[in-house]
């Protein structure tokens, strides 16, 4: 029985932790499918986390926070788009520049505005996205199995978590079922074909960056206004990079990317549960080794699958009309 409780708790935290990862990975997916490598997910997440927390702290509304987080992230995405599309700059350098800039700017502004040593004030529950009870969750609680699955596991997450999961079919639908999605996928494979078909490569890529910005903004907002209760220094802690790895592992496809995110989130949740647990023979695993786990798994996964094989063919390559 305790085992089942453990599994439930583990699954519950997996879902919770996975939300920002899923959103960021989908952001990376949209950008790369349009041919722009976005290593700046990490920075955009962090910026959005700060923007959301700051706005929520001032306004007292998580919605204002979410809006601010998304706006900040979209601006950075457009900046990356400008460097990649108009300046034909190096997309990896640009992404890293955004990461570093945000790592400095967020605590600088936090310190200047709130004087709390680079953090934002702790958010009240009214200013956060708190747990939502799904319909009938209370009444089904007592029912065996269903109660555990529905009321304990599926119910009781924040709105942003549900949104994250809803975004997967939505992004898949846009990519595969709409005209816009067809063009977006085409521009990541063969921008010249898109150009000669009379569609603007530039506009499509900017649109993709806006979508990536919105998703990444939601991801960062989830960090500071749903999972956490305020912004703290470096709170993205490599999640942007993990999201990128999940996207590669998921072969640039929404549903496999979701599964990869769930895997990483599960490892992360497991890591939390393993702390202090003593194993037969090995004894207690030092916390640092469990922290390593997602990163080690990522490397193993990348080693197992030649990562570049399914990448959109034009990703990372600036489009030049007159060659």
């Amino acid at each position, binding site marked *: 029985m305790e085992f089942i409780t453990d599994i439930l708790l583990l699954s519950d935290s997996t879902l919770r932790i996975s939300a920002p990862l899923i959103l960021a990975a989908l952001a990376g997916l949209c950008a790369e499918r349009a041919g722009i490598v976005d290593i700046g997910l990490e920075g955009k997440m962090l910026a959005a986390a700060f923007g959301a927390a700051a706005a929520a702290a001032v306004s007292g509304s998580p919605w204002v926070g979410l809006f601010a987080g998304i706006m900040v992230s979209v601006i950075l995405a457009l900046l990356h788009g400008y460097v990649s599309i108009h300046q034909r700059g190096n997309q990896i350098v640009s992404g890293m520049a955004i990461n570093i800039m945000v790592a400095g700017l967020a605590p600088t502004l936090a310190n200047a505005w709130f004087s709390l040593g680079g953090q934002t004030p702790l958010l009240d529950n009214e200013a956060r996205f708190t747990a939502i009870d799904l319909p009938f969750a209370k009444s089904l609680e007592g029912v065996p199995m269903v109660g555990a699955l529905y009321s304990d596991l599926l119910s009781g997450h924040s709105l942003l978590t549900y949104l994250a999961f809803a975004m997967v079919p939505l992004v898949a639908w846009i990519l*595969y*079922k*709409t*005209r*816009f*999605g*067809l*063009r977006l*996928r*085409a521009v990541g*494979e*063969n921008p*010249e*074909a*898109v*150009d*000669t*078909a*009379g*569609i603007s490569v530039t506009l499509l890529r900017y649109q993709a960056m806006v979508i990536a910005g919105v998703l990444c903004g939601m991801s960062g907002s989830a960090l500071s206004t749903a999972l956490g209760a305020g912004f703290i220094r470096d709170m993205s802690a490599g999640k942007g990079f993990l999201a990128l790895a999940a996207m590669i592992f998921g072969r640039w496809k929404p549903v496999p990317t979701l599964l990869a995110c769930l895997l990483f989130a599960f490892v992360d949740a497991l890591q939390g549960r393993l702390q202090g647990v003593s194993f037969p023979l090995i004894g207690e695993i030092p916390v640092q080794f469990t922290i390593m786990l997602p990163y080690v798994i990522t490397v193993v996964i990348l080693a197992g699958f030649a990562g570049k094989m399914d990448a959109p*063919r034009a990703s990372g390559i600036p489009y030049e*009309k*007159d060659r």
Partner: protein
Amino acid sequence: MHVAPAIETRDLCKRFGDVKANDNVSLVVDQGSVHGIVGENGAGKSTLLKMLFGFYQPNSGDLIVNGEHISLGSPAEAMAAGIAMVHQHFMLVEPFTVLENIVLGAEGQGLLKQAEIDAKAKLKGLEQQFGFDLPFDQPVSQLSVGERQRVEILKALFRGADTLILDEPTAVLTPQECDQLFELIKLLKSRGKTILFVTHKLHEIMAVTDSVTVIRAGRVIVRTDTASTSPEALAEAMVGSKISRSVTRADTDHGIPRLSVQNVSALSDHSHRALQNISFDLFDGEVLGVAGVAGNGQTELLEVLTGLRRVSDGFVSLSGEATNSKDVFTDPISLRRAGVGHVAEDRLKSGVVASMSARENAILGYHREADFCRGGLMRLSAIDQAANDYFENQDVRPRNPDLPVASFSGGNQQKLVIAREIARDPQTLIVGQPTRGVDIGAVTKIHDQITALRNAGKALLVVSADLDELMAISDRIAVLCDGKLVGIVPISEADERTIGLMMAGSAASSLVGSATEGQDQ
């Protein structure tokens, strides 16, 4: 009643920097006709086409479509004016299906499902009218080159094009596929479409066009009805002077083969069987031409012969040294030391490092030789000397080895490459596409050089996509199809039709037993 031309240009000019790619080009393409544009590589054909479908904008001059002066700001505007282009390098998204490629950019509405249903209905009509039969739900990556081209044409028709520009449409086709294309062109014409047919092959002009414009160095040299001209007259207009080419050949010494290929099979990058059980010998004092439609194993054959690809079966040997020379063929450096030079088929892809200086490129592949490098250090003055010698010997221009290779013309790049590969007087030379992207002046020079090497007793294997070229320089022509050696034909018995059939895979057993070279001449 007088009908306005489908396309007319008046004094169209386009400059890139100081280079005048198009200089007062005036063109008239009659409604419902097939009009040919011929010119050498770099004559300015592509620039003209790109202006006609809105990809480039002219610096000056007028463009008149169906009697109306218009300016085309983008391919979309050209399409709206009824002009569509079938590019030499297809503008297709490979992982997409045929249908997705056709609707891309002309979906008509936001949701794909309905767009595809509508498109299918419309395509059915087009299919009946023009006799297409394409697998709509297959990814383009699985289609043959000929099929891809038909997808491009259907794409244009789907968008309601009245005028189709075909840019070098036959460059990638087998002679049989070419015939199919010509049938299609005639059908399109009979249904009222106007075709602009661009090529540098004169017999194609004679075969399908009603009228023709010759372009040289960015200018129109002549416009005439096809019926009232001849290939010779066109060739002269195209090149500027009469080309006379009579190659004097010394006898081939059919003694011991210099290079022997025995039952070789090899896998492609995608683990397909790219070469299947190929055997032939290459003798001193001969040029063995290798023909075939692109992608039928020529690339892999070149790679096997130059140590870049391992055989999965069989072996290659040099000068009859049986199997102990096998190892040589796994390492390009040992192979060069053993006297096998290699002119890469795709110069810019692998034969040179375009961003590095000509000097540094002059030692590529020979950079480990003692005269260029000692104790792990480069000998800069020796390298400099070698580069200067190559420039001098081959008359590479401009004479500045400091410039990056990218800033030389194709012909001068190729001269540098050839100088490098023959500098050590190799007994065997493996050549891929000797004159691809090379200007006409250099072509003759390169051909003469190949013949001179042959007459000096060297063994040469030349792979080329240009059948005319192979006919001009080879002693024997080997034909590859689908990774198999269809046969080897002595030049005395070779004609374009036979080779064409062999390229399409029909084993010309009546001519020569497959994979035996026998006693030619």
